[in-house]
């Protein structure tokens, strides 16, 4: 098993855009195969992997979900050898001019996103511009070559190579949410040779960035008793509002709000303190913006929790995380699974001291 940072760098060197997650799913299948009892792929492409527990049947299941899809773009038209693009997942178009990309056409084509100058744009920015209006991809080939190789629907992913800033800090594209998948992998490694009472599902969900569809349908299929979403959250920097962001290297964060069962929050908090692990409580008053949002309201409902890894420059190709935060998240998830008693659901209360 390669070093955590090596695996994470592999994870952020492949595309795996929403709806087209197979490049990253294959990496996960290979890495998780020796660490789990069984794996399957859902109808929407989510990866389900189970570590069976030791408690007697009917044995409850805990579900850990981290989305594997990444944001990017898709070819929406061809124009004189250039490619028009639309977004896959949410993109701020202001990050795009000058970005290096790969167009996954009949073969992979390196390219760059370019902004048309004003005199080539319609006089009034209106309907015809669309979401990524005025932006084109130039792959450096002639119009006829592009016509042969590319077509509407081809994916365009960021080509920014991973940047190892130091031993602790890594930057690159798709750290949202491959950082969490690295944490899940570290959790699996920490569980080797250890027993859990509950079954634990490790789910790499599909299409979180577009519809949360993977989490919703996987939770519906697997019907866990508890579900935890692992995602990234806004990392702070000097000058950023402290109440909206979390510092890098001092995490992970524990979510608090309508999307989180307070009893689960309390159990995670107690555990982190027992492990002497630094953490921050992250306030999410209504929605968490994570897979937990949909998992909580599947079928009869599921108590949910959100665990997050602070990340700077979210939804850009230069996202930055602390590898220490990833390791801590992995460890916390492993310890939570191990200490989960068979009758936890009977003890899960809303108020403290109930």
């Amino acid at each position, binding site marked *: 098993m390669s070093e955590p940072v090596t695996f994470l760098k592999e994870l952020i060197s492949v595309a795996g855009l929403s709806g087209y997650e197979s490049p990253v799913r294959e990496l996960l299948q290979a890495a998780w195969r020796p660490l789990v009892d069984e794996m399957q792929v859902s109808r929407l492409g989510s990866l389900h992997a189970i570590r069976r527990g030791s408690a007697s049947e009917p044995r409850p299941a805990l579900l850990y979900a981290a989305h594997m899809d990444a944001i990017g773009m898709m070819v929406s038209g061809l124009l*004189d050898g250039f490619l028009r693009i639309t977004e896959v997942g949410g993109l701020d178009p202001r990050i795009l001019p*000058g970005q*290096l990309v790969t167009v996954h056409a009949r073969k992979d*084509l390196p390219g760059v996103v370019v902004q*048309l100058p004003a005199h080539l744009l319609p006089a009034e920015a209106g309907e015809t511009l669309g979401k990524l209006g005025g932006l084109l991809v130039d792959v*450096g*080939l002639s119009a006829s070559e592009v016509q042969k190789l590319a077509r509407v629907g081809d994916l365009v992913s960021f080509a920014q190579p991973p940047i190892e*800033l130091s031993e602790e800090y890594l930057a690159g594209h798709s750290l949202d949410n491959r950082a969490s998948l690295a944490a899940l992998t570290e959790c699996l490694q920490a569980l080797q040779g250890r027993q859990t009472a509950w079954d634990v599902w490790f789910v790499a969900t599909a299409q979180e960035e577009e519809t949360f569809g993977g989490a919703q349908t996987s939770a519906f299929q697997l019907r866990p008793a508890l579900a935890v979403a692992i995602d990234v959250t806004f990392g702070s920097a000097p000058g950023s509002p402290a109440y909206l962001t979390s510092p890098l290297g001092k995490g992970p964060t524990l979510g608090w709000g309508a999307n989180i069962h307070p009893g689960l929050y309390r159990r995670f908090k107690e555990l982190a303190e027992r492990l002497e692990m630094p953490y921050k409580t992250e306030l999410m008053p209504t929605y968490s913006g994570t897979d937990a949002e949909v998992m909580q309201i599947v079928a009869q409902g599921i108590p949910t929790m959100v665990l997050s890894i602070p990340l700077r420059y979210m939804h850009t190709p230069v996202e930055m995380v602390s590898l220490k935060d990833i390791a801590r998240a992995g460890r916390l998830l492993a310890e939570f699974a191990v200490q989960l008693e068979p009758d936890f659901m009977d003890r899960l209360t809303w108020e403290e001291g109930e």
Partner: protein
Amino acid sequence: MATRASLANPRPPRIAEAQIRLLERLCNACAVSGNESEVRKIVLEQVKPYASEVRVDALGNVLAVRLGQTSQPLRVMVAAHMDEVGLMLVDDEGDGIFRFDVIGGLNASQLVAKSVFVGREHVPGVIGRPIRISEDNDRDEKLTLDDLRIDVSPDNAKRVKAGDYATFSTAFARLGASLRAKAMDDRIGVANLIELLRNAPPNIDLLAAFTVQEEVGLRGARVAGYALNPDLALVLDCTPAHDLPFWEGDSTAAGQENTHYNTRLGAGPAIYISDASTIHDPRLIRHLMETAEQLRIPYQIRQPGGGGTDAGAIHRQRFGIPSVSLSVPGRYIHTPASLVRLEDWKNTLRLAHAALSRLTPAVLAADR
């Protein structure tokens, strides 16, 4: 040192693997205006075997002379600038985050979410917007320098400091018939000048000026022009190609043409008539065109209008120095990734070499 035999018959220079590798080294090197050392080192290493005299002047220009073989050869200055547009860290805000400023013409819109190298050690960093979280309703506002910071991570906070220079970290790449890199402006001119020095024609004293600080006001070229005081000057640069299509494409009723393209990729070396800082010498323009036509080298006219080259400073030195510019067209210059066509590069070098080889005092005989 150059040998007599190689001086006798100037082979027209070729662009082959070795030249592409050298351009790669040059483009990947980091040399912002005022801090050109990295490129200067490569230039010195490349020109020393071919020049009779090499010196580095007060601003850091590399001036290399290769004497001609005929009697009373024309003294021809050929210039290309070593510097690229870039950034300087100006304030340490802690935790590895720095406020920065731009050096040369760089648009903030090109800086968002890019990776950079900082300082001599090329410490990796990213440019981001750490202070505010992007919200849907602010996407219509352009981001400014004030919004952006360079972030080298807390661990590298002590490895860099205010005053360090930074450049994009884009790596050189070949895309079929195109080359993509940062700093094509003007490393491609530098590469061409190195080849010309290697293959200098015997009819001229070739006064090669690898200039500094072009991007911040043509400053190196000014003093180099004064010092060399040549008979005429040829400036090699990389000029924008805005040859992009209309967003509307063919569906506009009027069948519009892009009339502000400056130059076009694939249309050959660009000869300047005039730009914002120079009205180029018509005698030299004619010479370039006649040479191109005789040798069937494609060329295009760079549209008059904005911009400028080192010629802007050179032609005004001393008593006036007849000057002309010849550039490789490039898309997206002054952004992290510019694009040129291999064919245009080859033809620019061919034309420059042929034009130099055919220079005679007759070219400047008539009045301008």
